[in-house]
């Protein structure tokens, strides 16, 4: 739960407390947070709801970016991984549409390390609002994730190649990074050199120097596959002409999460098959 455990609720008679209950008013929540943020430099508001309901909050998110109010948006239930609540609640296009919005940081961390790193970035960036897309489902701690890596927006979490020339690069974010890792593991057993990249925050990655970006995604290597539980639109930027994007270009479904992942092809098997088809 995203409440501050050491504080009570801000109410009419307990205004010194710090957890503000907005009820079901996402739009006002975003706008009220903008007001709190600009009131004084020492106030850092963060707000939280389901990622799909950023749609209700889009106007204040945009104004937060424009007016440099640096609000932190902690958005959970960020994909088909939420399962049975179904397509009305499953974000698909939100990641891309918020990456498209100028002046915000759209972060999708994969595990505990990356999440705390994302939070740190959000707190440090006082002029740019940050949106953290977090899963509903529990995710395992992955090897190779790091706070320093997340700060650069994109980084290598595992790699058995040498000379910056892997056979294949797998790029992912959030809950799908685990799938990429598993697929890489299998492909490496079959003798391939595979690099796995976590591209937590596109905006921060783009701000890195060219040499760094080249060291993560060398232009020579054209065999690239992205996998993310969202629309594939936008991924051309990182997979290039010869790459493939595995994603969801339709609305989700009401079913247990594992079943949806399987039906929509976000699986280790499909990723491996795609790798072999390149």
């Amino acid at each position: 739960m995203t409440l501050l455990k050491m504080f009570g609720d801000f109410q009419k008679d307990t205004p010194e407390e710090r957890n503000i209950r907005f009820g079901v008013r996402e739009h006002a929540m975003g706008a009220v947070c903008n007001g709190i943020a600009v009131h004084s430099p020492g106030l850092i508001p963060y707000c939280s709801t389901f990622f799909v309901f950023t749609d209700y909050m889009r106007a204040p998110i945009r104004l937060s970016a424009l007016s440099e109010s640096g609000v932190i948006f902690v958005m959970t239930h960020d994909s088909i991984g939420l399962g049975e609540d179904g397509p009305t609640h499953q974000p698909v296009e939100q990641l891309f549409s918020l990456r498209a919005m100028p002046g915000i940081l759209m972060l999708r961390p994969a595990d505990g390390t990356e999440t705390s790193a994302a939070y740190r970035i959000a707190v440090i960036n006082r002029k740019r609002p940050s949106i953290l897309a977090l899963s509903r489902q529990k995710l395992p701690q992955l090897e190779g994730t790091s706070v320093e890596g997340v700060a650069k927006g994109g980084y290598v979490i595992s790699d058995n190649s040498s000379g910056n020339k892997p056979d294949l690069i797998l790029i992912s974010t959030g809950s799908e990074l685990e799938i990429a890792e598993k697929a890489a593991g299998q492909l490496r057993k079959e003798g391939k050199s595979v690099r796995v990249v976590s591209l937590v925050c596109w905006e921060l990655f783009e701000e890195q120097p060219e040499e760094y970006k080249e060291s993560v995604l060398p232009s020579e290597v054209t065999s690239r596959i992205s996998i993310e539980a969202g629309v594939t639109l936008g991924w051309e930027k990182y997979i290039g002409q010869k790459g493939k994007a595995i994603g969801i270009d339709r609305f989700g479904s009401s079913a247990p999460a594992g079943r949806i992942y399987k039906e929509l092809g976000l699986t280790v098997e499909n990723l491996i098959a795609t790798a072999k088809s390149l």
Partner: protein
Amino acid sequence: MATPTPTPTSPASITASGGRGGFLLARARVAPGGRWAVRAQPAAAELVERSVNTIRFLAVDAVEKAKSGHPGLPMGCAPLGHVLFDEFLRFNPANHAWFDRDRFVLSAGHGCMLHYALLHLAGYQGVTIDDLKAFRQWGSRTPGHPENFETDGVEVTTGPLGQGFANAVGLALAEKHLAARFNKPDLTVVDHYTYVILGDGCQMEGVANEAASLAGHWGLGKLIAFYDDNHISIDGSTAIAFTEDVLARYEALGWHTIWVQNGNTGYDDIRAAIKEAKEVKDKPTLIKVTTTIGYGSPNKASTHSVHGSALGSKEVEATRKNLSWAHEPFHVPDEVKRYSVVPVELKLQNFKVITNKLFCCEEIQTCSSSLGSSSGCCILHSV
């Protein structure tokens, strides 16, 4: 005597050593050059009228020069704007970020020439007469809808209707929260009001109702909203799509409501309403101010066309005749100029002053000897 180290970004470090022998004592909260319950008396009626027309014509002329903008609201809300800024609002034009200033939001952001004119007359350096002349031009500090990162004195970026009103609820929440956390029985460091002007358009947007509902639930008694009731929106007459009883709705949401039926010339009514609103401590207040959009324009007042287009040179001329304003564009009469910017010395005379530094070593003065005097004691840092 120990001097606490300053920590500009965490007011939590305030340690009120308080008391008589101490050196940190807040008496009145005003920055030198800042506005306290500003005037003992309002200006004479004639000067008020001249100030109000100055505001109106700065707006008319700026929109006309840009051939773009919204003259109607500034013309209709000039009386309200003048009374609020001149007689009630506490702020420091020389320090737009003074921590304990009253907050003002123009939620109906398209009427921003009203706000820019008021900032200019009050003496904000960020809105010079040249800035007014550059309204809506590339690189100007007076964009077509207010931008907080562009213009000093603008608290939030507004334009999409309803947003500013909800921002204002957030500003009032922050005040109530910080006051609860940091004020002590003998030391008040946070005590300011949040004022917001919103129109029919804002009232229609759902976010405004969400925010009003929250403000009522939270009992934000220092939030005072002015509803510019001019019966016009971008759509045309409110009879087309907006015929509800707004005051009844706000009462249902837990607000105190007041209706100023003559917002065009009822200056005393406006004053009385604001005073009444300030006295209601446990509920936010909505003051419905009935105005004529485009007041003063003989052919376009009360019409849809004055909402979002320049008057056109013929109508500008007709409005000048109608209001007996025989001045060239962007003219600010001397007496209005002199009166609007209240001299610093005047305020220092009457109040025990709190200057803008928080517990900064160099600035601390001992107050034990100055309790009865009007010299300065320490205060609250504005980062």
